[in-house]
């Protein structure tokens, strides 16, 4: 028994032994190199401490302390740090949150999606069944329709892009096309609407036109390559590209088809838009084209004159962004920014505008145009159309004031 030679238990053990042997050899060489009898030589300039081992799950570099800002009386929102991000994809753990009854904890093994109402075959799908359908993956933004209120009223100079517009994020979403599920259950021709109901404590529910389901709606179970985050609706959510965040019902548990809308609280009392003419718009699903400069923006400071990259995000719920114009003089003149690839429909689009700062005061603005020819309105234009009492869809042009000292603040005078 004890005379068995000890063998490496596994490949890792073997690797460790080789490393130890190798290290001993290296030390020996180093002793030779510095001359065993002579003085110690200074370490070579390329000397670096050995790095740490691989880990099962990575973490951000210690200096990268980007985080959401949590808000709301019930801590029901958190905002994406737009000023700290690059490109178009929002890291999943920084995707904005808005929930109406807390983050639901759903057991994926117990999860089901019921589809019923005006369908030929009322059906229950578990998560495994949903994943057996052909998967689709698309990059889309989500945006709370209340995003940007502080660019419309109660504006503050000391608000960052995160506090102005942090209720929008972009992810790659993967799931099953709702159109596929409609064929599977045999939705009847009379059905024109469906109720999308979440499995959160408050059973959040919205009525959705069937055309959207036939177009590009998705039951998403993955985000940026992995399962949805709990706060994004784990294990599955409705995704309605380009439509206000509230309709993208999380923890989706039930789709009920009918020939009319259901008139839930969140499509009557909330998420409607009273207009100056004494009416209120309902079912205002689509998020109009919008953009915001994320640098330079409060609290950043321009430390020197010279070239800076004015950059930001533009998006439209109606399709692709076709151009973004930037003004450095408060909207008197505009110049086209470069749109970084990829430019995808109903997705954040990154724009870039090289700007040589001359050290004088400036007012930076961005203005998005989408493929329908819609041009992001000024605050005055939007107020004329919607009135001052509106609560949602704040897509007016935002402006940043650059002081002679390089400080940047949100411009509050429209």
């Amino acid at each position, binding site marked *: 028994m004890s005379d068995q030679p000890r063998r490496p238990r596994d490949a890792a053990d073997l690797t460790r032994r080789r490393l130890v042997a190798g290290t001993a050899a290296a030390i020996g060489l180093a002793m030779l190199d510095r001359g065993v009898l002579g003085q110690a030589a200074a370490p070579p300039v390329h000397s670096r401490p050995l790095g740490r081992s691989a880990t099962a799950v990575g973490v951000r570099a210690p200096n990268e302390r980007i985080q959401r800002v949590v808000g709301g009386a*019930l801590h029901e929102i958190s905002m994406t740090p737009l000023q700290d991000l690059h490109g178009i994809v929002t890291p999943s753990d920084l995707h904005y949150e808005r929930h109406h009854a807390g983050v639901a904890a759903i057991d994926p093994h117990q999860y089901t999606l019921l589809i019923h109402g005006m369908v030929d075959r009322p059906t229950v799908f578990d998560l495994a069944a949903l994943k057996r359908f052909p998967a689709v993956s698309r990059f889309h933004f989500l945006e709370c329709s209340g995003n940007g209120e502080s660019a419309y009223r109660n504006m503050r100079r000391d608000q960052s892009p995160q506090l102005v517009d942090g209720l929008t994020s972009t992810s790659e979403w993967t799931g099953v096309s709702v159109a596929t599920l409609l064929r599977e259950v045999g939705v009847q021709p009379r059905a024109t609407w469906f109720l999308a109901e979440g499995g959160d404590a408050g059973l959040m529910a919205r009525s959705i036109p069937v055309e959207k389901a036939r177009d590009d709606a998705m039951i998403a179970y993955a985000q940026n390559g992995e399962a949805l985050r709990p706060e994004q609706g784990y294990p599955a959510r409705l995704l309605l590209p380009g439509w206000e965040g509230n309709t993208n019902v999380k923890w989706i548990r039930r789709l009920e088809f009918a020939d009319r809308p259901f008139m839930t609280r969140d499509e009557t009392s909330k998420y409607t838009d009273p207009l100056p003419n004494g*009416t209120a*718009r309902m079912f205002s699903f689509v998020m109009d084209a919008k953009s915001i400069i994320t640098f330079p923006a409060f609290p950043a400071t321009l430390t020197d004159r010279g070239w800076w990259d004015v950059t930001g995000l533009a998006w439209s719920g109606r399709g692709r962004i076709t151009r973004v114009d930037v003004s450095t003089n408060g909207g008197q003149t505009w110049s086209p920014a470069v749109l970084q690839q990829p430019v995808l429909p109903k997705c954040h689009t990154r724009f870039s505008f090289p700007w040589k700062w001359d050290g004088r005061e400036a007012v930076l603005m961005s203005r998005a145009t989408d493929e329908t*020819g819609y041009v992001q309105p000024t605050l005055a234009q939007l107020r004329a159309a919607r009135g001052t009492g509106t609560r949602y869809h704040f897509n007016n042009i935002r402006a940043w004031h650059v002081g002679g000292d390089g400080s940047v603040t949100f411009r509050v005078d429209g």
Partner: protein
Amino acid sequence: MTRAGILRTALVAVAAGAPAHVRRADHRPGPPAHYALGRPAATEEIRAMDVTVMPDGIGLPAGSGTAVQGAAIFRQRCARCHGPTGVEGPFDRLVGREPRQGFPFGRDASLVRTIGNYWPYATTVYDYINRAMPYDAPGSLKPNEVYALAAFLLWRNEIIADTATIDARTLPRVRMPARDRFVVDNRRGGPEIR
């Protein structure tokens, strides 16, 4: 023979002369109409999950309640968030008819939207309380309690009498003051700002 028919015949002829694996590729089927995934939903199962109440009253359960009954439940279950009379908060104000004239919410950001001055359908009061309230224990109210709370809130908003009984028959008939204020979205993209 039509041009498409000729083309189809020609393709079949070419495919027939091709090696087997090429022929298979040429005839690869498209996606099926049905994947036969999931399982049939049982009627009982649907009933257990389906809490929907529609504006015409479909989905309302048996039961009833009055404002007097609702006042007691409101004190116990609702007042902590919505105030003793549904006005004081700290969370959503539920009661109030001001402004009495017009519907100036689009012009005045200071106006508070209540059940009485803004909600277009009385059935939504039942549906929402039943789904989501009270905030700390949603789903814990029985139908009679939800009817009673709906009656209390409709009475406090001066829409029904304090003696009215609210049930599956009477609730859909309650006409809300803001019923005709709502219009469909007319935004269509393009150059116009709406």
